[in-house]
């Protein structure tokens, strides 16, 4: 593991990605300390005489939004929202996906087939459509949004884990461990899972990129995280109409979203190259 870490850090892009992620995570963690203002506070002098958002100034470093709230503070707190949902949703997706994938791959037989047929079914769903329908229907809490995203995301992980589980469980050391008298739980946890860990890690990383994007999209449509809780997606949603006159209101959160997703994608890709050179990637 140590040599992997070292090699990883040598790839500049991966290093950059880790820095970006650390930066954004710190912003999210220390939001109350870093943010200049309360993100939900609508300032009396936060709007122009005409009622439109203010441009960046020494007072409000990135300007204000349509309700006179400080954009910078909202962005910083937005990082919190995006990361929490991204990690939570992805965590649930990885859990479900791994559980079902291992079950199907290890047990095989009718159970395995049934589970795989089910994933085929889930893949046929137009994902976003499903997410949108679910999100707009259920009450808008962070948890619900995260769960909806997880529901849509677990399928890919399940299939990858399934194939991996099959190939690992057919290796001789699994049979050898069984011949020692090991019980199935022991084989699963002490032998199978450690071999799956690299794959799980790669998909956990890549998955966060997807969940962050999905949350942003849902919030942008107005059905993800609801204002006043700031999320990068819903900042864009609220301030759309000003994108001609105050484009930074839309682009700053936009850049933040792309940056975060990009960082996780690059990191995940680099991890994949390191941990499993047979996977398709750069040569």
């Amino acid at each position, binding site marked *: 593991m140590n040599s992997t870490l070292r090699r990883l850090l040598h790839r500049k892009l991966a290093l950059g990605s880790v820095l970006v992620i650390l930066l954004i995570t710190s912003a999210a963690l220390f939001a109350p300390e870093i943010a200049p203002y309360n993100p939900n506070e609508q300032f009396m002098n936060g709007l122009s005489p005409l009622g439109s958002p203010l441009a960046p100034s020494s007072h409000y470093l990135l300007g204000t939004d349509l309700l006179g709230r400080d954009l910078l503070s909202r962005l910083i707190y937005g990082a919190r929202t995006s990361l929490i949902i991204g990690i939570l949703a992805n965590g649930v997706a990885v859990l479900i996906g791994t559980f079902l994938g291992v079950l199907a791959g290890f047990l095989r037989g009718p159970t395995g087939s049934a589970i795989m047929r089910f994933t085929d079914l889930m893949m046929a769903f137009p*994902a*976003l459509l499903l997410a949108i329908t679910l999100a707009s229907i259920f009450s808008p809490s962070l948890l619900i949004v995260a769960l909806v995203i997880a529901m849509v995301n677990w399928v890919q992980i399940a299939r990858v884990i399934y194939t991996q589980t099959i190939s690992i469980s057919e290796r001789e050391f699994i049979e050898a461990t069984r011949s020692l008298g090991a019980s199935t739980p022991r084989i699963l946890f002490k032998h199978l899972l450690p071999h799956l860990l690299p794959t799980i890690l790669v998909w956990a990383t890549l998955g966060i990129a997807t969940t962050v994007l999905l949350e942003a999209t849902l919030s942008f449509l107005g059905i993800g995280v609801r204002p006043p809780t700031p999320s990068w997606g819903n900042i864009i949603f609220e301030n759309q109409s000003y994108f001609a006159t105050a484009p930074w209101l839309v682009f700053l959160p936009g850049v933040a979203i792309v940056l975060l997703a990009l960082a996780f994608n690059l990191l995940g890709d680099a991890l994949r190259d390191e941990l499993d050179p047979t996977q398709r990637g750069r040569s």
Partner: protein
Amino acid sequence: MIRYVSRRLLQSALILLGVSFITFFLLYILPADPAQQIAGRSATPETIANIRVQLGLDQPLFVQYWHYLVNLVHGNFGRSYIQRTDVSELLASRLGPTLYLMLCSILIELVIGITAGVIAAVKRGKTSDNAIMLFSFIGVSAPQFILSILMLYVFAVKLKWFPIGGYGTPEHFVLPALTLGILGSGWYGRVMRSSMLDVLRQDYIRTSRAKGASELRVVLVHSLRNAILPIVAMIGLDIGIFMGGVVVVESVFAWPGIGQLAWQAIQRVDIPIIMGVTLVSAIAIVLGNLLADLLSPLVDPRIKLNR
């Protein structure tokens, strides 16, 4: 071969059945009450109850579902709660623009992606390669709505070259198709690059170089033909991906396709339309996957149509 196709079609039909049931079920258990939506805020409980009976919403889940299926077989997708039109009509009128957009964007994705991938492969390791790869990563990491808004801002608002959304003239086409095309090309670009690199390594490429063929000919004629095969199978999957995200793009560009239709329907809890769009999208996804699977043996003769 025929057996494989018919088996897959049967599987697909079952999958679609499953999709329709799950969607129906989810819509059934949702907290919002369509009868209430239709009746409006000031309606009396009797009116609402009447509407429920009219629409058959008072019947148990399976009965409703059965009716739906029976109608479906006759080509009847039901009637919109809000718009008082047959869903099938709505779908038919909206499907065109969506399919049109899908075709154009996939074309652009292919053009950009393949070109980028080939160049990146040929110039492997150099700055252009790294730059192209970085761009393709950005393409995968950017949500559609962000690039859409960016494109609109730069080209429609500032430069005023194109209209801000809508449908009708060829100008209306450019921005949405270009946006999707650029975003989607990232995926194709990466696959093309690694496929091209694999092919360029092969002995038969070395042979044709030794025979004195010009580098351009080697790349374009000999390598490309083989390297492009994996891409072909990806197109089928791309259709599915497009269908999944169609709502966002059509919303931003005010594109009158089934995505926009679905979005409006979701906001108004117009269940028949939601069902209809979901089904149509699922059909597209399933067909796309089937196409991809059928094409993969052509790509790699070692893959047998076994499942």
